[in-house]
């Protein structure tokens, strides 16, 4: 029968106990440092709780072990029997705390991922809004410039024509007497300059092409559907996309077209109830590229349908009623057309057609008025 000294056990126990206190204390300090940087961050809170629990565990356990060894070395080992239950109980409690905090990790991660996704979505939407705002501002400023030029041209044209006519007559009279011809020729030249300036001002048209570039409709529709998907999910409305296999290229402003489609989709979602379906399809037709948004919601009453494109007409309390008027304005800016077909109780179909090249649809359709609403 052999005997082994317990010295290795004592050394490992004492060094380990001190090491546990030191490193778990450092863990707590680091976690506290992380927490201080962003006290509202869920991860920072989680790490602080986790480190706090690890520190409590290490402290309670290690102090127990250290005290036990000192009592034995001092010859009071028997006293450990009174302290052991307290040390053991605290230890058990810290185990449960660590386990509870750690088991919450999964939920914590789910919350964080959800928050990250929402934040990304908000950032994306803000960027879209910013771009849209910039484009709108550019279009408005361009329009204002054009309108001012036309107004100036209109105001200056008549006096310029009259002055020109009078100067010609005076010049004829002066030819006979021969005096001051030199000066009148200069006046005539300046009058001609004035006339050509008026012509130039009158020829200024709103420059559609300035903010328009080649776009692909399928991609824009998909991006728009991605934006409204959470809203449709919340309401229990199914969004189905039947996209054309070919690329649907057209000239336009992506943000404005997306905004128009987005508005129509939001209207459809709002009108639909749980279990309804919104079918979005894209295609290439002879008149250009087409997007059809069809829902099986309650439809629009005949008396409302006649006014849906009118500005400030709204059946919803507290709304401006500019939504569909804006949609029509955007589509008209693209020289396209928007139609609404609806039957009460059966659903609504919105058809947006955009010419593949600016001016194309206008030429093909002749005097067809865009924004026409139809009742089946």
């Amino acid at each position, binding site marked *: *029968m052999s*005997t*082994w000294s317990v010295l290795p056990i004592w050394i490992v126990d004492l060094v380990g106990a001190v090491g546990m206190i030191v490193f778990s204390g450092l863990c707590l300090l680091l976690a506290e440092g992380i927490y201080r940087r962003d006290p509202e961050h*869920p991860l920072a809170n989680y790490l602080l709780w986790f480190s706090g629990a690890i520190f409590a565990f290490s402290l309670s356990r290690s102090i127990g072990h250290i005290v036990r060894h000192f009592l034995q070395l001092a010859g009071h080992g028997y006293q450990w029997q009174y302290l052991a239950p307290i040390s053991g109980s605290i230890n058990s409690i810290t185990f449960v705390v*660590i*386990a509870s905090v750690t088991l919450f990790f999964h939920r914590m*991660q789910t919350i964080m991922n959800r928050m*990250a996704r929402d934040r990304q979505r908000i950032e994306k939407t803000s960027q879209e809004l910013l771009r849209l705002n910039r484009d709108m501002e550019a279009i408005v400023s361009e329009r204002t410039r054009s309108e001012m030029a036309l107004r100036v041209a209109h105001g200056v044209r008549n006096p310029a024509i009259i002055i020109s006519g009078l100067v010609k007559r005076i010049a004829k009279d002066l030819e006979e007497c021969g005096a001051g011809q030199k000066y009148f020729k200069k006046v005539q030249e300046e009058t001609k300059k004035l006339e050509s300036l008026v012509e130039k001002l009158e020829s200024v048209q709103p420059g559609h092409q300035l903010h328009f570039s080649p776009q692909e409709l399928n991609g824009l529709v998909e991006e728009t559907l991605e934006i409204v998907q959470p809203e449709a999910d919340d309401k229990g409305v199914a969004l189905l996309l039947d996209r054309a296999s070919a690329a649907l290229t057209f000239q336009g402003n992506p943000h404005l077209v997306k905004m128009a489609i987005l508005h129509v989709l939001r209207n459809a979602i709002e009108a639909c109830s749980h279990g309804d379906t919104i079918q979005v399809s894209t295609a290439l037709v002879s008149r250009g590229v087409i997007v059809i948004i069809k829902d099986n919601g309650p439809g629009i009453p005949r008396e409302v349908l006649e006014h849906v494109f009118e500005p400030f007409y709204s059946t919803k309390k507290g709304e401006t009623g500019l939504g569909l008027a804006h949609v029509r304005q955007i589509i008209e800016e693209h020289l396209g057309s928007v139609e609404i077909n609806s039957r009460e109780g059966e659903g609504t179909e919105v058809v947006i057609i955009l010419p593949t090249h600016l001016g194309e649809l206008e030429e093909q359709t002749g005097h067809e008025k865009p924004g026409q609403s139809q009742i089946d």
Partner: protein
Amino acid sequence: MTILVSVLLLLLSWPRPAWALQTHGGYEGLYVHQGAHLLFILAMISFAYRLRVTKLTAQKSWRWMYRGAVMISIWNIWAFIGHFIALTVSGSVTFALGNEVIPVLRMTSWRETAYFFLKMDHLLSLPAVIFFYLGLKDMHRTFPQRDLFRDRRRHERRRVDRRLL
């Protein structure tokens, strides 16, 4: 009403032990402690599994946390067995030789050998805490990194989808 009161008074005249308060003696403390160890193991294994499945271990900081969780799980199993072995080892196997301050362990069977090694559980628990420390140290350096906590699986799936498109 009178009859009811009379019956109640009659019952109160012959009291019996009510066992209203349960005492907590004997092995209950050990069972609670061992139960807490099991809960600790479960939590740490699920934590390590979650870190691995969500690919968080791709980051240095979470890799250290993962190692810490695995190590502390092993320590828990080690300590769990150690508590049971300690029950089977008699208190008299540890005794002092002469005037020696440090006692010795009488090795009578495999239990004493196991007890000797299982008692040195700090060999596992200290590295586990050091791993947690290293993980937190790295997080402290990089925090607030944007996707420090993000489930990487979704991210990877999206990347693959884009490639396919």
